[in-house]
């Protein structure tokens, strides 16, 4: 058998194209870089999966067709990590950082550099620092085993940072990183909290828990989101968390806390069976009574564990030395008659028809969309 080469022919041009792009000697100098184009043709799932920012980075909004795409295909240049003068690399390994921004959540991989100045995750292909933390900003490090969708257990590193943030990382050499990081941070003069155990941490809580905050109760609960703009009151799915400092509710869709109240502002709670929609009838609804800016408010949650929550919340209130306010009476500001606080707040005064400003808002017609 003889090897084929036809100079003008197309048969072997495809082999040449394979070689001439993405092969050959690589020069690390100031090169003229051509945009690595992955054109956007209607539906490009790869871009959507990679994330908005990367898309823009790659010049996604250009209107290129298949011809250009063919040769620009994988022509990406690798760039060296941007180390500062005098910066020494102590550990160079591979890792991923769990990036959360709005509804985009993804693990971003790259080369993990632990230097004498910082911990940095760098993606060569697009020359981007995915994650960076100066050593002096690191206040604690904890490791937790978690199971992933692949079935394998992996060690997740929780990095506590100044400003109460927590970063989640998955690293190839977990122990190496921990050892060296602890050593370096303490050498830099910062005392690490070695008692951290990453208990109660997961991808949700690590994004909103403050330093020193511990979760005591959590569960899936729907929350009645108040009216806003053109949106009526709506029930939304999410998770309710009771910590040592607050009660807060995490919106599954937005992936952030949209309701919270400090524990010392909680007065009490009741559970009632209500119809929360034409379809969902007879649901357990937990009404939380709390104080805000001097006045009393109600937040409603729904879920199977409503009774358990009521118990937990009432215990909390009792431990703060107050009597739970489900039975407490209030005076109607308009006519002066006494009624159950909850009744007044939720339905208004039975005697004179007074409604709280909040309730008024709730009952007002929805703003018409233009």
């Amino acid at each position: 058998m003889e090897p084929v080469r036809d100079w003008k022919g197309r048969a072997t041009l495809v082999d040449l194209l394979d070689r001439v792009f993405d092969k050959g000697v690589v020069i690390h100098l100031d090169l003229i870089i051509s945009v690595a184009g992955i054109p956007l043709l209607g539906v490009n799932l790869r871009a959507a999966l990679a994330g908005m920012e990367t898309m823009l980075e790659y010049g996604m909004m250009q209107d290129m067709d298949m011809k250009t795409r063919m040769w620009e295909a994988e022509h990406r240049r690798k760039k060296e990590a941007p180390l500062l003068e005098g910066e020494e690399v102590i550990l160079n390994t591979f890792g991923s950082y769990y990036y959360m921004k709005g509804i985009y959540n993804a693990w971003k991989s790259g080369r993990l550099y632990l230097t004498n100045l910082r911990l940095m995750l760098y993606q060569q292909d697009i020359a981007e620092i995915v994650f960076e933390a100066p050593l002096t900003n690191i206040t604690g490090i904890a490791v937790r085993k978690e199971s992933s969708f692949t079935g394998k257990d992996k060690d997740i590193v929780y990095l506590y940072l100044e400003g109460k943030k927590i970063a989640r990382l998955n690293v190839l050499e977990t122990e190496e990183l921990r050892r060296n990081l602890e050593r370096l941070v303490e050498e830099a003069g910062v005392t690490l909290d070695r008692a951290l155990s990453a208990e109660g941490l997961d991808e949700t809580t690590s994004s909103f828990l403050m330093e020193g905050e511990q979760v005591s109760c959590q569960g899936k609960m729907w929350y009645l989101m108040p009216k806003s703009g053109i949106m009526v009151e709506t029930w939304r799915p999410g998770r309710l968390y009771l910590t040592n400092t607050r009660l807060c509710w995490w919106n599954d869709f937005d992936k952030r806390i949209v309701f919270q109240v400090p524990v010392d502002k909680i007065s009490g709670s009741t559970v009632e069976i209500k119809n929360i929609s034409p379809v969902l009838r007879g649901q357990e609804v937990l009404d939380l009574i709390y104080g805000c800016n001097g006045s009393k408010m109600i937040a409603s949650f729904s879920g199977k564990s409503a009774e358990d929550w009521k118990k937990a919340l009432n215990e909390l209130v009792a431990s703060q030395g107050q009597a739970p306010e489900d039975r407490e009476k209030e005076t109607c500001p308009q006519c002066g008659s006494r009624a159950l606080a909850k009744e007044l707040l939720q339905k208004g005064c039975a005697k004179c028809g007074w409604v709280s400003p909040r309730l008024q808002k709730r009952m007002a017609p929805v703003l018409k969309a233009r």
Partner: protein
Amino acid sequence: MAEGRYVYCVAADSKAARLGNIGIEDNQVYAIPYQDITAVVHACAPTPYESQDKEVVDKWVVAHERVIETVQEELGAVLPLGFDTIIQGNDQGNVEQKVRDWLKEHYEKLKDTLDRVKGKREYVVQVSWDTKTIAKELIGSDQELKDLHQQIKAKSKGAAYMYRQTLEKLLGAKLEQEANRRFHDFYDKIGSCVDEMKVEKLKKEEQPRQMLMNLSCLGDPKEIHTLGGELERISNMTGFFVRFTGPWPPYSFV
């Protein structure tokens, strides 16, 4: 002022030779030497060669290759660079000096690599099979498959469909096993005929064709007939097809 240098390859030579207007867009190609190695370039603007027109790009790529092959012919060993490698000058200008400095900095490595590929060429070996043909063979030879095939004949329409699915699944697994076996077998046989090998990504082919292996091989053109013979044997096997192209400059081995 041409502030860019389009670099084609690095060769073992000491002359600042001029190779004529053989470059991309008929540019003047010449050499920038450092001691006994040299970079083959043409002067250009500091912008990459880009085009929406496939024909234009093909033309450029062929020109790129031609320069490399010309140098290879004259000087023996070359280290090819990818398309559109353009070095730009810094603020002071002198891009030629930059090229020289780069050659100097990597001198040892470049020389070693030039020695390694001297007199050798790259060859592309792709082995594919016809899944239909191979499947038929397997059903005829594998007991499990044979039995299942027999069972189906006796089933009612709907059940037959379901069992056919099971057969297909099993067949898929057996094909994969066979593909693996063949891959390792061919890999060893081909490996013994060449100096170096790289496994490349498989290319998608039209059904029922399926690529089993895609190799870049580095070998001596004078000895390549041994590889040719081995590939001949493989292509003579029923249901197997071989694509063998070359010689190419050693893009994959530098």
